[in-house]
């Protein structure tokens, strides 16, 4: 019984260590600055200024999601959510994809009718490389 408990404890410690190690970002970045940029993106979306959002995108992102397409996809979500109330909390991580470093910001936003999570990927020079709302 003692051996089983010990084995269980070691296994648990290993899982926790793996989790903590895996949480370390791939590169250094300014978290506060990334969160502020993400918030400004959401502010522009809430204000209906989709061109301002497109202006901050990478070239690839502009081609994939121009202002008109962004407006078409996000507008129904905003209508369903009601007026924006406040930012709730934010979380970030750094990932490297195809050799490019991205700062991924998850921003929790409270609207009148529901909460939404924006997941915004930023390049290291704070250009929008990805945008997802759920």
């Amino acid at each position, binding site marked *: 019984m003692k051996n089983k408990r010990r084995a269980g404890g070691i296994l648990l410690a290993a899982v926790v260590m793996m*989790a903590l190690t*895996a*949480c370390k970002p791939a590169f250094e970045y300014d978290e506060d600055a990334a969160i502020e940029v993400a918030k400004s993106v959401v502010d522009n979306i809430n204000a209906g200024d989709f061109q301002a959002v497109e202006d901050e995108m990478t070239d690839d992102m502009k081609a994939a999601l121009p202002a008109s397409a962004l407006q078409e996809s996000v507008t129904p979500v905003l209508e369903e959510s009601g007026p924006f109330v406040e930012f*709730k*909390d*934010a*979380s*970030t*991580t750094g*990932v490297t994809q195809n050799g490019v470093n991205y700062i*991924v910001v*998850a*921003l*929790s936003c409270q609207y009148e009718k529901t*909460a939404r*999570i924006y*997941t915004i990927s930023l390049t290291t020079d704070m250009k929008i490389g990805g945008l997802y709302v*759920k």
Partner: protein
Amino acid sequence: MELLSGLFTVFASVIVPLAAGVWLALRRKGYIKPVLLGAATFLVFQICTRVQLLNYLNTRAWYSMFSFSQPALFALFLGATAALFEEGGRWLVMTLFMKDKKRISDGIAFGVGHGGIEAVVFVGIGITAALIIGEETPAFETFLAGVERLLTMVLHVAWSVMVLRSVTEKKPVWLLVAFILHTVVDMGAVMLAQSGVSPLWIEAALLPVALAHLIYTVAAYRKFKEVQHNEK
């Protein structure tokens, strides 16, 4: 085709669970109590607790980031919490309210109640409503949802038998086995979905697992039916 798949899924997720529950109740062997307790266990320990917890977590940025950046751990979290709430709930309910229900068939009835109400709530109600109002549903995905519900009910029956054995035989290892199996099955399904595996192959992977669980349930029933008969 959409209508056929919709009807099949209504059959699998509403008719089969309700018919199984009613049939057990009509046998007048005291199965109505474990059926209802199984259903209540799901409603309390999933719908009223775990689902509410997950709904709250889904509004938190750190949780969203966790799901994005740690997909394997996230899958483990989902699987383990499902197992903890459901197997833990089964154990608690059986310990408190099924002291007089020790037959393997009582465990089967409990699983029918649990898996049955889960099928109705998660799939049955939605697909029935869609059929009634004439809403279009994707035929193949709808069909697969019905298949999944049938396979999942088999799993719930087996896990309920295991947990009942842990209570009646005073062998916690059966509770641990149910917990581990539940975690692995749920985690595996999540990871396959994360990897982009199509729902068809996910259900195909679930099929042998469900068959193995069915074999266990049948074997346990045959083995202990004789013992329980002799104890009478």
